[in-house]
């Protein structure tokens, strides 16, 4: 049992997505609980994050690890009971209209899921109206808006303004992130937090949810 989980953690850490999927399936077949498999996968991405902090891992390493994490979690999540996943809060995330960049978002999603957030990824080039509709329908704790161009970052202001005009702003926290963004920009937009990078975003998300509860 511990050998499979050890190999699984290593596969996630080293970004071996196909191997991580196979080992997750094997672990479940070997009657290891979905919760234990999930914890192992999370510890793999967690260690990748630690190595990133220490300059040992580069972005390419973390992204590959995040991909392995995502692939392995897809195997395990259907086997988790309702109370075992997404307990930290619900996050809707997407890249704003006109913008296709998603590298930062990939890492943020992986780190949020590893921190037990339920994450709904709307993808890239997401029209402002879709963010509003999804907030209305899914009632998340946090809305994450990613923008990676200096023209598309202007969309963020409109979306936050729209949330307010539609009476939806009070119920959720809004986070922004992406290369051209700063704390100053987040303040200008009326966002609740700015994620400097994926690790920072997760810490801020935890704080925002804690502040509400």
């Amino acid at each position, binding site marked *: 049992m511990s050998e499979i989980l050890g190999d699984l953690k290593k596969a996630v850490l080293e*970004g071996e*997505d196909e191997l991580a999927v196979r080992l997750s399936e094997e672990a479940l077949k070997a009657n290891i609980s979905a919760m234990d498999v999930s914890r192992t996968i999370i510890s793999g991405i967690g260690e990748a994050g630690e190595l990133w902090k220490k*300059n040992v891992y*580069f*972005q*390419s*390493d973390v*992204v*590959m690890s995040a*991909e392995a994490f995502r692939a392995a979690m897809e195997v395990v999540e259907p086997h988790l009971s309702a109370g075992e996943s997404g307990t930290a809060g619900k996050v809707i995330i997407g890249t704003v*209209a*006109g*913008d*296709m*960049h*998603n*590298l930062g978002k*990939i890492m943020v999603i992986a780190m949020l899921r590893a921190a037990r957030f339920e994450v709904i990824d709307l*993808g*890239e*080039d997401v029209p402002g109206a879709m963010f509003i509709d999804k907030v209305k329908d899914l009632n998340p704790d946090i809305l994450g808006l990613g923008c990676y*161009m*200096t*023209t*598309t*970052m*202007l*969309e963020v202001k409109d979306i936050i303004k729209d949330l307010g005009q539609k009476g939806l702003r009070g119920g959720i926290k809004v986070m922004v992130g992406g290369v*051209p*963004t*700063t704390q*100053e*920009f987040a303040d200008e937009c009326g966002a609740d937090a700015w994620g400097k990078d994926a690790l920072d975003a997760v810490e801020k998300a935890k704080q925002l949810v804690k502040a509400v509860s």
Partner: protein
Amino acid sequence: MSNEMQYDTERVSRIFGKFYESDRPWIEMGAQMHDHAMLLEKVPVKKFYWDANAFLASLYEVAAYYKIDRPQPQADNYNFEVEALGGKMIYSDSAMPTIDHRDTLIKGPEDLHKIRTPHFYRDGRLLYNMDCVKFSVNFGNKAGWFCGPFSLAVGFVGYVPLLKNMRKRPQFTKDLFDLIIDKVLIPYIRTQKEYCGVTAAFGADAWSNIPHLSVAELEDWIVPVNQKLIAKGKEIGVAVSCGSGYYYEENPDNLNIDLLFKSFDIQIASRGGLPYLTIFPYMPDFPYKRVLEYAAKYRDNAIKPIVRVMLDARLLRNGPIEHIVNVIKRDITGLARDCELGFFLSNIPADTPPEHVHAAVAALHTYSHKPIAQNPDQVEFHLPHFQTFEDWKNDNK
């Protein structure tokens, strides 16, 4: 063909061209500013990014307004080749075209046949880009522009799939890079030589930097590919270089000198041996002395290294002005007396207040005025009288 193009050359030459008539007594300010110029000139996206005439006239007008010495007359160098070969794009009314990475042109070896030599005068917006290059040749800038091999591979395949392929399908990845060089980039550079009159060509390659890639990935994949391109460029008489290997680190606790020096090695190898070092000193205690220490080994061999300082676009946007001025003064103090220096406003954000750009340019021109003062604190700096862009245009009709 662009014979039909009508540049407003008289105006641009009169207003902007005067900067090129004599040596300037200060360190030059370069700038990438397409989105900002578009917004300031209120040019519609669909005109600005398709009509070279509109693009150039606006860009140089804004550059003259700010007294920017060397505007980069390119829109974006990461999209043209992929678009020309049929890659899926996102076209919006508010931002420049961008590649749709959700549905890439190349998904596996079976798609490699899609990488062919484009028709440079017909496909996509390649001619638009070449017209921009051609126009800048008039001002003595004889360098063409293209998308660096790794960033182009990202455009064709996507960043994550490309990383996976580098690890799991090295032969496919190698074939991809070979096709990129032989079918796309060398013919494109050759065409820029013939059509625009360039003698050099630079490949923008923001994807192939630290920390996007590890040092090992850069050394094992990117440097050999860049060097192959450089060698083939030499065969057609063009000095090719690629902007790979920059090192971004904003956290002083994480700044690693070994990585910085490795980054310099990779940059030089990607520029055909030219010691042209780009730095991002986005922290108060940036180790300028270590940069000088690295550069010294070239100076000892009678080669003058050039250090290009990238100014933080977010600082430029957010200000305050005093901080912008102090950062430029700090960078000059740290480096300018001991090496050749260039400054670059790296992609001025679209909604940057014009006062901030004016302050940055004035600070550079003042503190770097030659001979550069031993004690910059004794140099008097005055913010230039501010005029709105509209007022300035009225005064310079």
